[in-house]
């Protein structure tokens, strides 16, 4: 499974970035091999619709699941359409969040947790 985690810096020891559309980095992790790659958020400087643009990006990267802090209404709708599982409310490091996911301690969100433009 390919999991993407929003992160404040570009390593597994990074703190989770609580924002989705405006996160600093996206860390893609292959949970079978534990290989990973950190990518700067391509939509960070977008004037609007960042959550939608990042949703498109993680969909194009064929992510199956997302771990982040909060999710806005547009991203929630887009990710649901793509069938990407969204785990919200995560904090601590990327590594800790991945361990929690593997241990089955995370539950997927059923909808948005914040209003639009909350990450600005």
């Amino acid at each position, binding site marked *: 499974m390919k999991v993407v985690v929003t992160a404040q810096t570009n390593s597994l020891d990074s703190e989770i970035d609580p924002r989705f559309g405006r996160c600093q980095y996206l860390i893609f992790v292959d949970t079978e091999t534990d290989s990973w790659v950190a990518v700067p958020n391509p939509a960070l400087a*977008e004037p609007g619709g960042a959550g939608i643009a990042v949703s498109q990006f993680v969909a194009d990267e064929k992510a199956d699941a997302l771990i982040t802090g909060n999710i806005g209404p547009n991203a929630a709708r887009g990710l649901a359409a793509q069938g990407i599982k969204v785990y919200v409310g995560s904090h601590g490091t990327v590594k800790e969040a991945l361990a929690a996911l593997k241990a089955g301690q995370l539950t997927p969100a059923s909808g948005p947790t914040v209003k639009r433009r909350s990450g600005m």
Partner: protein
Amino acid sequence: MKLAVASGKGGTGKTTIAVNLARVLAEEGPVQFIDCDVEEPNAHFFLKPSLDTEREVSILVPVIDRVLCNGCGECVKACAFNAIAVLGHKALVFAEICHGCGGCARVCPTKAITEQPNRLGVVSTGPAGNIFFVEGRIDVGTPLSVPVTKGARREIKEQDGIVILDAPPGTTCPVVAAVAGCDYVLLVTEPTPFGLNDLKLAVELVRELDIPHGVVINRADIGDQGVEEFCRREGISIHLRIPFERQFAETIAHGGLLVDAFPAWRPKFQALWHKIQEEVTV
């Protein structure tokens, strides 16, 4: 002659200046008043128009035919606002952030995109004494105001004398939509660090648009000298200073006009107009 009243900072007294100026000028000839503060238009409280005509403002937003859409993503590339994405193998529209440019429909290779109107607000018009009054008002929850401002400006009858446009606060697109193409911008500010900061931003904006401009200082006897010093340094005329008076605030709170309640202010607003005219004709 189109005069926009703008500010940068909110709550400085744009509408107060605009409506009082409109009232004194309307005694001498036709005046059109355009309330471009479409998020919270309030000039009607003071000029009390009979709004007898209402026009809806809409933009065209894309609708996807899910049979024809093959998820190629050309529409996503064409959209400058991230209002469309291919998710779940089909284009998905986020209508509330769409600016209605029509680019996606134009580039779609399978003709899967048609467009339908999405209402943003209304423009109302009617007489306020001898002022022709226009008001734009966006619907609650609508984030896109520029088309409504443009809709309000389309009601301007080009041949008719003086047009006063009451702009929204700030220095973003809705302000540009209100002041672009005007002959003069009056910037209303207050003598505080906040007023000065936002005045500087507003001055940058009108300089970028290359529109002659001058300043009115409201509540001029409070705060500090920062605005006065800035205007002197930058060579910007201060046309009028209005003191901070409880009786002015009371008049305004009751929807009254300073030029009606305090006749001594009539010549001051007339003089303000003459100073603006002098700067426009230079």
